[in-house]
């Protein structure tokens, strides 16, 4: 899920797009001032290098070399490690592609529905639970309670977590690699 914690100033996107023209003009003006000492190419290169140093490369990496979508990775893992027809409980909040329904016996329920989670836990069949790793800022008490129930169940253990890149989401507005899927086997 892509949570937005800080709203981007997208209503001024056109103005933001124009700003690099001023950057180019600024580089040009600085290069002109320093012409007596350095060539234009050297000054331009130096300014670009300094500018790049102030960028958050870690964040940019997510646009050019993105971490694979964790739900796709989780689906592939299930196909390899969980046999056809197995019982799967999927948290609705994950919005996992319904294509998995054809291969497994799937029950979808909200992670907030503690009673339904409890009922699935009481089921005698071995079951895999696909639940999101909760984001503390958005987790409701009911969500926390459901996950505590899963963790406290004697036969349950987390078998695999698909972690995304943990972006400092408070600063950046798009949480790309969420949701992080946790597979719990009962």
């Amino acid at each position: 899920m892509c949570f937005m914690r800080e709203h981007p100033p997208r209503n001024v996107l056109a103005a933001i797009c124009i700003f690099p023209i001023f950057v180019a003009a600024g580089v040009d003006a600085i290069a002109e001032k320093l012409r007596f000492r350095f060539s234009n190419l050297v000054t331009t290169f130096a300014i670009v290098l300094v500018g790049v140093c102030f960028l958050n490369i870690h964040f940019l990496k997510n646009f050019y070399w993105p971490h694979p979508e964790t739900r796709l990775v989780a689906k592939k893992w299930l196909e390899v490690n969980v046999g056809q027809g197995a019982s799967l409980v999927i948290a609705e909040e994950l919005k996992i592609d319904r294509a998995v329904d054809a291969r497994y016996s799937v029950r979808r329920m909200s992670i907030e529905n503690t009673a339904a989670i409890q009922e699935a836990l009481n089921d005698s069949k071995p079951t895999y639970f696909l639940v999101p790793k909760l984001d503390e800022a958005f987790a409701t008490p009911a969500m926390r309670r459901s996950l505590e129930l899963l963790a406290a169940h004697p036969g349950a253990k987390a078998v695999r977590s698909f972690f995304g890149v943990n972006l400092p989401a408070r600063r950046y507005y798009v949480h790309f690699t969420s949701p992080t899927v946790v597979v719990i086997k009962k």
Partner: protein
Amino acid sequence: MEVGALGLLLLLFFADSCRFSWAALPYSLNWDERYTLPPAAHVAFTPTLEPGLYTYPSFPIYLAAAGLKMGSWFEAGSVSPPPDTRVYEKIYDWYPTFTSPKTVFGAKVLFTLIGTLTMLWIALLAKRFTGKTSSQFLAPGVLAVAPLFLVHSRAYVNVDIVGACCSIGCLCLLLFYERRNTFLFRSILPGILLGLSIASKYQLGLVMIPCLFSIWLYDGRDRMKKSLILLAVGAATFLVTVPYFIINNSQFLRGIGYCAFNYYNGFALHGPRGLPQLLHYIKGLIGAFGVGFALVGVVGD
């Protein structure tokens, strides 16, 4: 040589954006896509052409619908696939998980192309402003590291990138043909781009100011006539691209009212009106380019 290098740079950006979009499918990367793709699917795969949403104008929704239609041909493997109303349900009901990824990819490719076109306008404008070939590469290069631009040009189908493309395209046209004092270059073409800008994002009506300036400051003849034609062409373009605002005017006015209320109140998510709001935008600018490039930009300004 220069043109070829710029073309190659843009082509690489476009190809990489398409790869990025495809990699996340069938999942949506942004909640706000619910305002564009489901209404676009409604237009593309049901008999009605009414998007039923006026918080945003209809032009980007129609563009997304055209993209979805192309994507559905790609998915079906032919230009005239048998009518499949389930495609609409798959996009509308199952959002934010698209069970027709190839169909959705059609819309994403189209919007990525619009983002790349915006980059081209910036390259052309930078060269025009500084007269240096290096600026033609530097400006789009700097734009390509701005997260706000990257989010809007490759992560999701949104109205903002269409508005930015049309409004910057309009400025590009005005600057490149500043000496052509004809009705075509002063009123008709800028009028069409003005109309498309407003039909993408209501507040981009501000593009009208540079259009009128180009007539009143740089053109000696028929100023009033050219201004009126500009406004008439703009209004006609808006009418063609947001046709349902006449039929469903109560919803349209409600949408406009919502936007006006939102902006008047300082757009709740941006903080209170006044100085905090201004600081939010300054922070957004620095966040977009980093302190280094932001300072150099201020020097260039």
